[in-house]
């Protein structure tokens, strides 16, 4: 999936003012519900206001709820967040449950605009041991070594060559006591 065809901005996950690090502050500052008292398109919003709104206001005391009855207007909700952003949502012909769900969605947002998350984690301290550089884990002997060097010039994963292995085997046979020579 490439990003070149998307208008949606992308970014790393973040939160305003290190929210949650000290205490969690609900970011929804106020929500304005605009609806018509008569028209059928506002029925869901009106039902929500009659039944579920008080409970919502009680569970979210940090959010101010404004109600705007406006005749001949389709219903909408505008959410304002602590970082100054606003979200508009048209609630035309929503059911009562839909209004409730979208309202709780607004509660969980911070004001940061919707974006594609590049990664689902973020850290300000990406490294603890230090970033690798070519000098990490290098033997200090390279400072005064003359290259080509017998040990340091060899590849790291280079095991003993076949010749060296044969020499090793021969040496083993040489070291053993002639009295205990194994039968060949």
């Amino acid at each position, binding site marked *: 999936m490439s990003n070149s065809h998307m208008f949606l901005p992308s970014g790393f996950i973040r939160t305003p*003012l290190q929210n949650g*690090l000290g205490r969690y502050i609900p970011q929804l500052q106020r929500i304005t519900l605009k609806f018509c008292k008569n028209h059928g398109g506002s029925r869901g919003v009106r039902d929500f206001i009659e039944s579920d709104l008080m409970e919502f206001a009680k569970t979210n005391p940090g959010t101010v709820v404004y109600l705007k009855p406006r005749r001949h207007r389709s219903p909408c909700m505008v959410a304002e967040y602590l970082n100054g952003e606003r979200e508009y949502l048209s609630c035309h012909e929503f059911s009562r449950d839909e209004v409730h769900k979208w309202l709780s969605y607004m509660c969980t947002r911070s004001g940061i605009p919707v974006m594609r998350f590049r990664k689902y984690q973020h850290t300000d301290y990406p490294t603890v041991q230090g970033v690798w550089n070519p000098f990490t884990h290098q033997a200090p002997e390279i400072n005064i070594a003359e290259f080509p060097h017998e040990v340091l010039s060899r590849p790291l994963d280079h095991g003993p060559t076949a010749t060296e292995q044969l020499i090793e085997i021969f040496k083993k046979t040489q070291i053993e006591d002639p009295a205990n020579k194994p039968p060949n």
Partner: protein
Amino acid sequence: MAALWKTCQQCLRYRFSNVSIYTSITAVNVISKRNFKAHWVAPTLRELKRRKVIEDDLNGGPKIFHRSTFLEWNYDAEIFAFSNRLGEKFNDLSLRAALTHKSYIERETARLSDIGVESNLQFQDNEALSQKGGELLSKFTNGYLRAVFTQVPEELIRAMHDFLTSNPTLETVARHIGLGDLMLCADFPCKTETYVKSFKAIVAALAESSGEERARIFVQDLVVTQLYGQDVNELWNPVDPVGNLTAILKREGKAEPEFRLIRQAGSNSILGVYYVGLYSDKNFISEGAGESLEVAKEMAAREALKKFFRTEDSMRALPFGRQLKNIQSKIAQLENQPNIPLSEWISEKVMSAVH
């Protein structure tokens, strides 16, 4: 096809425009739905937008309105929500006083006397509260820093404290808890000093209403957390790290620092790098890298100081929030007890303070 390309270009252009915190009334973020608009709607809106941009530029920026000028505004409800949002209980009078500025009172009395009404407004301004709040803020920040950075000299504590209580930091915090709409002040858009004054007054009001303990936790949760993500070594710049290091080692009775070249690459090129190691009596202390020998030497000395003060990149993560529960008494104790200054710093003195 050409129309589609033009629309795409417009979309991309508007996406990158910067939106200030108090923009004009038109909503910025829309949860989009499928719509069927006639062919003339988009070009009309485009033309109106073009004209609006020109007029805004002539007027020096788009028109901004204070939130209280809207029809849907209830100051009492907003104040109630403010205290609940933070999870704190405020005395109503203290909170309102903390949010009222002298400039507002002066403006209101002037306005009323212009009309001819006798003004005996019962407003109390936040001058005294903000003064007290500033002191409390300083005290609480210092307490936290000294309790967490036990090995660090007082100069670095002061640098971190100055950063945390600086105007930009406090303004950001004040904006993001919603003080912008609640403050009663004559200037709009509100100045930095107004935000900072209100925030300090809020701290004092909280101390008055719920006690100093709650105010301390409030400052720790909101102000001190701004230290997260900051490299503390960027905040403080010792002028002569080599001299400081030599003095410390001398005081501790250790040998003079000896600098040795450890690694080197590309000395003939622009991208040359030198690694200099710092030894005291043949014991390795630290190493530093730089583009020249002098720079590398200084960096090695800085790394050594970081090691002594326990502020390396690999230092322990800073505790916040609930992690401070066990050290609150220690924080309160250290509020009035400055750390050792750099001129007297030795390891033995600070070892006893390690928790």
